[in-house]
């Protein structure tokens, strides 16, 4: 069970690659899939390594990334 | 101090226009010192804060007009004043104000030019005021008062027109009007709170969609639409806001066309001429834009000559000639350099065309 996850809004991503280098866990990679503006969109190559730290989202100039984090046990019920 | 309560006072034109501004509900004035309009700025510095408004002696005329842009965008009646060289600096800002559909009143106490020129009264800024000055397709209502009481009335009128048509309105005065003293009846103060609401103003997007004040439309279709809309307002202004005065024109064979301080002198000339049996009249454009083309054309059909007199090398005369076409002679008499024409000089010119 990964500690975090991200969702990339493919149409917002401009394929700049900044999130890739900001991710401390090597989670991200270019997907090879191009969006309507023909940018190569980022995806999670190793989703299991994501900690939900949010570094990728902080650096994304186009706010293409939403970040999720595992609820702490007390949030659970 | 006195002006707040007493309604008939002896004031310089500059002070009277400032006080009239405050009474018109103006609550933001930004300016920069330049002779011969300093008294307007100085009056505002003392009285605007008392009225609860904003006053700043700005770092330049450019800053002042852009402060006006901001204050007007916030929905407040806003005014600035300057004299010729300073008005040149304001021109970019005036274009933006026109492009963003913002009301603003600008007083130009015109002095001798071009360049630094001098501080004597002149009318050399007529083209700049009425034909553009700033860039782009915009128009500015221009009022040319010829007495201090009229200048005072024009301030009130200028604020009304600026709000009604959402654009810049200029009062084109001159050094004589600014510096001279005359008794004036000040208008009744307007409470800004009672003025019509400005739903477009930047007051914070609370409980409504955001308001945007801009002149920037990257898409040509969109800019065209905004420009066409503004143009239609300009046509409406041309139909409804032409102002002029005719004096002794009914039986005239020669008519002087003059505005501002020169028109005041021309009234004396009419009296002198009539004393000598010369049927002289005066047509005084009050709104310089929109210009009274039709009244001039009507007069042209029944007179021999329309003599335009200006304190410049011939600027308004181009509009007079446009109006008159070939219907009558359209001579011009002008004095330059900040000189003021004497009634005698003008009468001598009149005689060249009278009977």
């Amino acid at each position: 069970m990964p500690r975090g996850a991200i969702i990339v809004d493919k149409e917002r991503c401009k394929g700049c690659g900044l999130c890739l280098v900001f991710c401390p866990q090597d989670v991200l990679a270019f997907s090879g899939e191009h969006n309507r503006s023909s940018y190569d969109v980022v995806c999670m190559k190793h989703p299991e390594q994501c900690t939900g730290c949010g570094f990728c989202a902080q650096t994304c100039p186009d706010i293409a990334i939403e970040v999720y984090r595992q609820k702490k046990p007390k949030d659970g019920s | 101090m006195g002006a707040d309560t007493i309604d008939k006072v002896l004031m310089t034109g500059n002070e009277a226009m400032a006080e009239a501004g405050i009474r018109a509900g103006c609550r933001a004035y930004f300016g920069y010192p330049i002779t011969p309009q300093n008294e307007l700025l100085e009056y505002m510095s003392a009285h605007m804060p008392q009225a609860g408004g904003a006053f700043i002696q700005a770092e330049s005329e450019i800053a002042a007009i852009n402060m006006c842009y901001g204050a007007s965008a916030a929905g407040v009646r806003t005014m600035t004043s300057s004299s010729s060289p300073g008005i040149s600096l304001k021109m970019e800002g005036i274009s933006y104000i026109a492009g963003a559909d913002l009301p603003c009143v600008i007083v130009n106490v015109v002095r001798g030019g071009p360049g630094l020129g001098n501080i004597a009264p002149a009318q050399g800024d007529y083209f700049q005021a009425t034909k553009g000055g700033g860039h782009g397709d915009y128009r500015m209502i221009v009022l040319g008062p010829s007495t201090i009481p009229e200048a005072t009335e024009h301030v009130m009128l200028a604020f009304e027109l600026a709000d009604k048509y959402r654009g810049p309105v200029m009062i084109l005065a001159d050094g004589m009007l600014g510096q001279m003293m005359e008794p004036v009846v000040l208008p009744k103060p307007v409470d800004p709170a009672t003025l019509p609401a400005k739903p477009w103003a930047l007051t914070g997007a609370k409980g409504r969609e955001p308001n945007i004040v801009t002149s920037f439309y990257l898409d040509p279709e969109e800019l065209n639409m905004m420009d066409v809309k503004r143009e239609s307002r300009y046509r409406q202004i041309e139909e409804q806001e032409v102002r002029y005065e005719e004096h002794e024109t009914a039986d005239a064979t020669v008519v002087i066309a003059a505005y501002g301080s020169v028109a005041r002198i021309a009234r004396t000339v009419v009296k002198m001429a009539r004393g000598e049996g010369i049927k002289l009249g005066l047509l005084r454009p009050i709104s310089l834009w929109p210009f009274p083309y039709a009244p001039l054309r009507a007069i042209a059909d029944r007179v021999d000559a329309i003599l335009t007199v200006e304190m410049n090398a011939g600027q308004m005369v181009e509009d007079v000639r446009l109006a008159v076409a070939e219907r009558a002679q359209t001579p011009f008499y002008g004095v330059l350099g900040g000189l003021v024409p004497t009634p005698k000089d003008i009468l001598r010119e009149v005689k060249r065309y009278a009977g």
Partner: protein
Amino acid sequence: MPVSTENMVKVFERPNSLNESQFSYCPGCHHGVVTRIVAQTIDELEIRERTVLVAPVGCSVSMYQWFRCDGTQASHGRACAVATGLKRVNPNLIVFTYQGDGDLAAIGTAESIHAANRGENITVIFINNQIYGMTGGQMAPTTLLGQWATSCPDGREGSLAGYPLRFAEMVAQLEAPVYVTRQSVYDQKRIMATTRAIMKAFRYQVEGKGYALVEVLTNCPTNWKMGPVEANRRLADEVVKTFPLGDLVDRGQSG
């Protein structure tokens, strides 16, 4: 690959102060990062409904189209004068300008300095990308010595074209400003520091403390002709040598 967010909480999302439009900035442009931080700050301070933004002429010229706040657009360089007019007639508004180095520190130098000197209670976000982005990469007042630009093809030569203008330092000499700082966004630590600085600048305005300037060293991948990752390295290794990071003035702490 589908990603499951089951049992997870959202910890980062699009700021509510922004609408759904895409920024018009180029891929990897730091303008987007700073614009996002400003929007997030407005959210956190809950001031969206009384904020008015003043867009400059530059790559952020149409910034008001992306915000759910009232906004206007100033002529090139005059944003601080426009902001002054807005704020003086309605002190309840939260007014900020967002200006490039050409806009704020070349054509608008007088307006920028004098608004600071009067201590206008406004927030100035200054995007120092050392270039004229919008017009295609001409020299800015902040262009580094030796840096190539389309209007200094042999690199900026100080004796002919002047030296990189340290605007934050200039403003820091004045008595009125309450907060003057220079930040950057080339790594995570810097992004967090910029976020805190922009928050402080706006908070001081909300508290009525006065003028704040946040200069942010940013990139222009398009006109630097450099990928965004390499551009981050350039900022960290070179640009900060001319433009040192950190707070220059903070008079807002007490009271």
